[in-house]
């Protein structure tokens, strides 16, 4: 009798934060998969109560050092929807531009330093750098292009401080933005090379019937604005989020698990945005996607690294477009008057749709806050993927299986520190005792 086989890993490297994965295999069949998050809950929603609405963008930006812009954008849009403020023209374009910076920075970090090493059989980016020095150098330079956009538009790279409800505190000059152009032009070619590089990886053959959920806008690849749509018929205003999605507490995890009412798990992030908005990519990004072998919908979660690379190219081209047509707005901010209302905002964080809801009183103070981050929304889907990958590869030796499961989680670039943080992986194989 084989009894029980167990693999325990101290933590999963190259994901943001701490979590654990426990897998039980009985008689060669997957019995249970539990992907858990055990960082203490982060009481952001509670300590926003009683604060001025103007503080929400800077407080929520602190939830994540990788995607602060997403938090700032969802917060300002929620406030603006509460107060009936429209932010258009160059201010709206600047918001898209700073979001381009965050996508470039966050996606490049993940593609080059976190996800690619696993596909190349390297235990880390450091090992990968020894064999692929030019590739890692290219990744570091590309990431810096994103950081520079965030610095110029946001005031600084980490936790930018220039975003406010109604617009910005200060808008950049044309010259300040034009200074970004030469590196962005380099980045456009580097982004193409990135797509071709990752397209050559070997991908496990996994196809999932995801319900893909993202924002969708009639004219543009989504960052800040649009309806919430899915490939299974969902088409709702952002304000209807809570009518169609639920969050439930699961005892083993400090993050709330999200579901679509009546259906269950769903998928947010690059695959969802891409599958639902393919035609709104730039022609060059679409061509490179096709050249990389992708169809207009990608159902293999491992290929998310290619889609992320396509989105980097898109973000670089979009940034160049915005800078080329930029004329500084007369005022850095739209004037508004706070009122008692409930506001909803959703924007596309690098990891997927990020929803905020705030109830505000007459003095502009926050009565109640709800923040639904992408990793919490993907948690059930990650468990589904893990189950499928396990079932398909149950006979692999434990070390290979472990690699595959770690990559399965990394496919989602999970920002576990946002969702509530290392992964303790246990694979338990046992035979049913009768």
């Amino acid at each position, binding site marked *: 009798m084989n009894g029980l086989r167990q693999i325990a890993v101290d933590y999963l490297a190259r994901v943001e934060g701490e979590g654990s994965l426990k897998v039980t295999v009985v008689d060669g069949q997957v019995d249970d998969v539990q992907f858990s998050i055990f960082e203490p809950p982060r009481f952001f929603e509670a300590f926003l109560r009683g604060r001025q609405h103007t503080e929400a963008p800077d407080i929520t930006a602190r939830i994540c*050092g*990788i995607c602060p812009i997403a938090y700032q954008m969802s917060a300002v849009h929620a406030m603006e929807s509460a107060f009936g403020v429209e932010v258009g023209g160059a201010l709206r374009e600047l918001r898209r531009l700073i979001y381009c910076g965050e996508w470039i920075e966050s996606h490049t970090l993940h593609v080059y*330093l976190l996800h690619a090493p696993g596909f190349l059989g390297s235990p*880390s*980016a*450091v090992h990968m*750098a*020894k064999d692929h*020095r030019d590739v*890692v*150098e290219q990744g*570091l330079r590309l*990431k*810096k292009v994103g*950081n520079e956009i965030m610095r110029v538009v946001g005031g600084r*790279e*980490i936790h930018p401080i220039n975003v406010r409800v109604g617009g910005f505190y200060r808008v950049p000059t044309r010259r300040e933005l034009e200074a970004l152009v030469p590196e962005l032009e380099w980045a456009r070619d580097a982004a193409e090379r990135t797509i071709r590089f990752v397209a050559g990886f070997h991908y496990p053959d996994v196809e999932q019937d995801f319900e893909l959920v993202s924002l969708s806008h009639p004219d543009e690849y989504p960052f800040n604005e649009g309806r919430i749509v899915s490939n299974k018929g969902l088409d709702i205003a952002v304000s209807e989020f809570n009518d169609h999605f639920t969050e439930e507490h699961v005892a083993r995890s400090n993050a709330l698990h999200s579901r679509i009412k009546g259906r269950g798990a769903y998928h947010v992030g690059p695959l969802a945005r891409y599958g639902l908005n393919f035609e709104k990519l730039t022609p060059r990004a679409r061509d490179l996607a096709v050249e990389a072998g992708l169809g207009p919908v990608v159902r293999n979660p491992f290929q998310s690294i290619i889609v992320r690379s396509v989105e980097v190219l898109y973000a670089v081209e979009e940034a160049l477009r915005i800078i080329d047509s930029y004329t500084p707005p007369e005022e850095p901010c739209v004037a508004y008057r706070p009122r008692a209302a409930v506001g909803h905002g959703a924007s596309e964080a690098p990891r997927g749709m990020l929803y905020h809801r705030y109830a505000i009183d007459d003095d502009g103070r926050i009565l109640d806050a709800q923040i639904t981050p992408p990793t919490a929304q993907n948690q059930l889907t990650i468990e589904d993927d893990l189950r499928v990958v396990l079932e398909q590869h149950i006979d692999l030796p434990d070390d290979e299986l472990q690699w595959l499961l770690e990559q399965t989680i990394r496919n989602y670039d999970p920002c576990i520190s946002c969702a509530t943080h290392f992964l303790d992986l246990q694979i338990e194989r046992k035979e049913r005792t009768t």
Partner: protein
Amino acid sequence: MNQVVIGVGNRLRGDDAVGPVALDRLAGRVDTSVRLIECTGDVSKLIDAWRGADRAVVIDAVVSGSEPGTLHVVDGRHGVPSRWRAGSTHLIGLSEAIELAWALEVMPQELTIFGVEAEAVTPGETLSDAVDAAVDNIVERVAELTHA
């Protein structure tokens, strides 16, 4: 001579702010040609900061079990002692940045790491007394080192 002093840390996390605070006190004490760079531990920024430098100094908080305020000075070209949990609150640690710098062949001629034993890296904008005293010591030593 291309010299850079890098203060690693988060100003909002107690003694983790030792690197940035040391930079504040070094301003005016070192030659204007010495670059002072604050860094939250982002590996790419560390690599960029010391790329092309003849002499790089890194100031960071360390948790190794010594008395709070203890100053550890090591030759960073050989990595950091494994007992250091240096940069524990940072994205990718100093030790990875050192390894990556070797792999990318951008290791400075000299890399000196001043590691200050932290008492607490809990939220707050105040250094503990022990770490605060260590900063003055670092400032003197770095001023001397960069004049050499």
